[in-house]
Structure formats: structure tokens, C-alpha cells
């Protein structure tokens, strides 16, 4: 299947991700886990939800989509961050071991929100939020202050993360993932460590911001009821366990 065919075949316009027959197998202490993605297509600006209990392979898929985890085998894995650009063959990058180029793609096009903080403890909130912009060499243009205002953390900008509550740190993490205007934001259970009320508020802010900036979102969550209000497209997945429970296999498609 050619690249052109694949994008034309999709009804929702330009594809950011085109994934076919990607498998990741992990094995430790005799217990194997396998993630299979027969087909996954994500269009530019789409808001995707990946819902499932912990251990089902959500994070594995997110890491593959963020180019920080090498798939075991690949049918096709294309990434097109720019609407007018050519799709990039991610499998070729991995096979050639061009990890620095993968890093450059992450730096330029991706924002990643982790389950807990992932903030650098030695930088202030402002510097943490500015990290991606800083390494990209983007100028100080008030973006950080504006984002902090929207996320309700403006008064914390000059503090170190250790002075902040868990919820506030998650807001900083979201701010950092958005500050450099990435094409895609990947969020791995960004509110799992928060109380439901705070979680809801933060997610609402998050969705508002990505809508405003027209960013593609891939969000993992362990419970659909937390996010069903947010208007996300839910990916389907099925998880099987072998009878001796030594093999878990998850199949995702959408």
C-alpha cells in the first residue's frame, strides 16, 4: 500500500499517524506481554482516547507513538507532522538506529504529559514550562505567562516544583507539553494521581487549550467515565490472557 493511498483512504483528512501491523513483545521472568496494532490511523487535530485497566498496554502504545520505544515488528509506521509535508517512515529511522533524529522529531512536534510530573526539580516552574521552547531556541514571547494564566499557576512561575502540590505540578507538566505549540500531545493518565474534582478541572482546561491551539491529542486513561464528557474518539482494544496466565495480548485498532 502506498502512502498516497493510505491517506486518501482515510475519511478524516490528513493523517498524522498511519500504523499497520505493529507488534511489541515484552518478556520478563517468564511472563510475556504482546501489543498488536493491526491498524491505527490518527488524523490531524483528532482527539483520541485509549481506555483500559493498567497493564493492558496503553503506555506501550503511547511510547511507540512518541518514538521512545522501538516496536518489535512493523508492517508500516508513518508519521506526518506537517499537513503539507511528506510522511516519514519511522520504521526506517528505528532500523537505522537514528535515535538523535527521533529525538529531533519529538522536540519539534511532540508534547508529552506523564502520569506524574516529570518536571526537572532544579528548574523553576517558568523554566520547566519553557524547557521545550528553550531547546528549540524559541524567544520569550509571553506564551508561558499566558499558558500559566490559563492553567491557574501564574503565581507559581518562579517557584521550584517541590513547592507545588501534585495537582499544580500536573498543570505545569501540561503547560510544558503545550508551550512549544507541538502538533501532537501525548498524555499518559495525566490526572490519575489527582482527586476526581481536581482531575476534572484540569482535564477541562487541557481540552480547552488543545482545542484552541488545534493540537492532535492522544490520551490514555484507565476509566472512560472520567473522560467521556470530553468528546474524544475512543480506540477499541481487546485483551486476552492465555490459560496459564503467562501471556497477555492486547489488540488495539482504530
Amino acid at each position, binding site marked *: 500500500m502506498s502512502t498516497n493511498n493510505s491517506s486518501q483512504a482515510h475519511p478524516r483528512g490528513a493523517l498524522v499517524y498511519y500504523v499497520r501491523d505493529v507488534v511489541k513483545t515484552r518478556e520478563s521472568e517468564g511472563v510475556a506481554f504482546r501489543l498488536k496494532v493491526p491498524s491505527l490511523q490518527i488524523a490531524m487535530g483528532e482527539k483520541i482516547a485509549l481506555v483500559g485497566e493498567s497493564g493492558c498496554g496503553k*503506555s506501550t502504545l503511547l*511510547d511507540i507513538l*512518541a518514538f*521512545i*520505544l522501538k516496536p518489535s515488528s512493523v508492517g508500516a509506521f508513518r508519521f506526518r507532522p506537517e499537513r503539507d509535508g511528506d510522511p516519514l517512515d519511522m520504521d526506517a529511522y528505528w532500523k537505522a538506529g537514528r*535515535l*538523535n533524529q527521533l*529525538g*529531533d*522529531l*519529538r*522536540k*519539534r512536534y511532540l508534547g*508529552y504529559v*506523564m*502520569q506524574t510530573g*516529570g*518536571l*526537572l*526539580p*532544579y*528548574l523553576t516552574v517558568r523554566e520547566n514550562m519553557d*524547557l*521545550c521552547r*528553550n*531547546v528549540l*531556541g524559541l524567544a520569550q514571547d509571553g506564551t508561558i505567562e499566558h499558558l500559566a494564566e490559563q492553567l491557574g499557576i501564574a503565581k507559581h512561575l518562579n517557584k*521550584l516544583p517541590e513547592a507545588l502540590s501534585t495537582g499544580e505540578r500536573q498543570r505545569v507538566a501540561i503547560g510544558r507539553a503545550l508551550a512549544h505549540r507541538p502538533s501532537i500531545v501525548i498524555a*499518559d493518565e495525566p490526572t490519575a494521581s489527582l482527586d476526581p474534582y481536581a482531575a476534572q478541572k484540569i482535564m477541562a482546561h487541557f481540552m480547552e487549550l488543545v482545542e484552541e491551539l488545534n493540537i492532535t491529542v492522544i490520551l490514555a486513561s484507565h476509566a472512560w467515565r472520567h473522560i467521556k464528557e470530553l468528546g474524544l474518539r475512543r480506540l477499541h482494544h481487546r485483551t486476552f490472557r492465555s490459560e496459564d496466565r503467562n501471556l497477555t495480548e492486547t489488540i488495539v485498532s482504530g
Partner: protein
Amino acid sequence: MGVPLRKVFALASRDYVHEWQMSVCFVLALAAVLGPMLVLFGLKFGIVGAMIDQLIEDPGNREIRPVSSGRYDRSWLESVRRRPDVSFLVPRTRSIAATIELSSEDSSRHVRVELIPSDQGDPMLSPRGDRPEGVTRIVLSRSAAEKLQVAAGDTLDGSLARQYRGQKERVHLPLTVAAVAPARAFARDGAFVSVNLLEALEDFRDGRAVPRMGWSGDRENSIRTYPSFRLYARSIYDVAALRDAFANLGVDVHTHAAEIELVQRMNRNLTAIYWIIAVIGLFGFSLSLGASLWANVDRKRKELSVLRLVGFRTMDIAWFPMVQALYTAILGWALAVGLYLLVAGVINQMMASQLGQGQQVCQLLPHHYGIALALTCAAAVIAAGLAGLRSAHIEPSASLRDL
């Protein structure tokens, strides 16, 4: 397009400062190794240096004297004098004839002095003072000058006697004090005089005529030989080679070579011991810093993964332990130098009473500090290299969670 090095430096520095307790520990650990090493080297350098200085300062250490008297003629002596490792050589006349009785107007005493042959460039005489010249200008030893109560410029009467054809004869000759020699030049009553004068006195005592002095006697000696000579090597390091050269010529000489060799051997041995200690110390420091940096990579796995995630390249990440190790090296070195200066000051203060002016037991030259810094940085960079290699191989996916 990697991350600019400036930014990597800035981040690594912020991390180093933020974890100041850790950083202080590293710096203290380094200073604890490097400080005593500097003191040790300072002591070695200071003590051996002072010993070598003493050897060099006293030209007597460069003297080479024949053990027994021989018969050396002018041309042989001239050939020895032309050797590049010989700085000064004058022939000696027979010592039995090399005395004279001196008297001055200010002192009633007659002083019998030994005469030492001298010439331009005599290392025992002050380089700025006047030389003995001709048959009238002589340089008195300190003790002789004191007994005669004379100073430079004063005149003396020299007199000597001989038995000639059954008659006792005495001659007088006017002498001028050209200078008074430093005390260490000659401890007894003596005078540095030209070889010409000594030859004249020897001839007179032997009953020969010395026409230029107006002394009559038998006819002049045709071929003169000398029983001995005064010789000084160019430097203390040439003494041993000269001694061996004389031994090959069949001339047994007395030298200070043994003392010089003792100091040189001590210097070599102490240097060897010092370097063994230094290498073990630096190796130990390198290992301990390496281990801490290595463990640091584990501790900071998540933070490094975050940097990886936002697009830091392999090399950018590897710079982190490198920059931080260099901070430790430079700060630890500075602290060690501070410690050294303190301890060296105390040691030198304690020893001040036993030392000459300007002498120091514990001493380092500026370039020693530079070498210490370079070695420390090298050890730190090697230690950090391993940790850097490890941090560069962090797989962000495995490290972002579970920790």
C-alpha cells in the same frame, strides 16, 4: 540540530547547584584526597629543594682536590681547564712554601697566613669584590683581616725568609688589600693571591733568583710543575663525571660527589614514592567519583529520560555527568589548594626558626598547581566518561514510569 552546548551546560549547572549537598560531598571528598597530596608534594619539593639549594649555594661542594700531590705541568692543567664541565682551575704551588708573614701599621701583630692561589672567576670570592692581581694585590680571609685590623685598600708588609748557602735571608714586599673574602671562603688566616706571586715565593724559598722581584739566587727554574691544583666543577651535577674522568687519568680526587649523589638519590626516591601515592590517590578518587556519578545516573534516570523525551541527543545527555564532574574537579582543587596554603603556612611558620631567610620547608611553584588541576580534571573526565556513556544509553520509555 542538537541542543546548544551552552544550554546543556546551564542545565547541568542548575542541577549541580540544586543538589548542593551532594555536590559539597563530592568536592569535600576530592579535597580530602588532593589536599594532603599537595602538602606531601610541597614538603618533598621544599625539603629537597632546600637541600639542593644548600649544595648549590656553597661553591665548596663543587671543589675537586687531588688526594695526593703529583707533578702537573701547565699544558696538562690548561687542557683540563678547557673542559666544558670545569668552571675554574688554578695550579697550586707546594703548600709548605705557600705561607707568608703579614704585618700592618695598625696592628702590632705579625700574622702568618696560608696563601691560596686564585684568579679571575674564583667561585670562593664574592663576584663583585676585587680580585688578587699581580704580585701586590691580595684578598685576605675574614679572620686574617680582623687580626691585622685592615680593610680593602689598606697596605700590608709581607715578609718571608729562607736559608740560602748557610745564611738566613729575609725579604719584604709591599702588598695591598684588594678585598676581604666572605667568611665562608676560608676559615683560617689566609690570603688569596695570584699564581704569579706564589711562584715567586716558591722560587725564593727554593733559593732561586726572582729577577722581577729583585731577589737574587740560583738561576731560574726552566720547567715548572705543580703538585696540585684548585678545581671547581661547572655545577654540582658535573662533579661525579669529573671525578670519574680524573680516575681514568690516574688522579685520585677528593670530592663532595657522595653528598651530592645522596641528595639526588633522595630526590629520585622521594619523587617515586610521591608519584606512587599520587597515582593511587587520584585513581581512588577517580574510582569513587566514577562510582558516584554512575549511581547518579541511576538516581536521575527519570530526569535524564525527561530530557531525552524533549529531544536531547545522546551527546547532550552524556555532557551532564561530564560538566558536573568538572565542577567537582575545579571546586575540589580550589578547596585543596586553600587547604594546602593553610597547612603549608603553618608548617613554614613552625620551621621558620630553623631555616634561613626566604627558605620554606613546604613549597610549590605556580605550575605545580596547574599540573594538579590538569590531573584532577583528567581523572574527573575519565570518571564522567563512563557515567556519560551509561546515561546516554538510558531508554526513556523504561525509565519514565516505574520510578
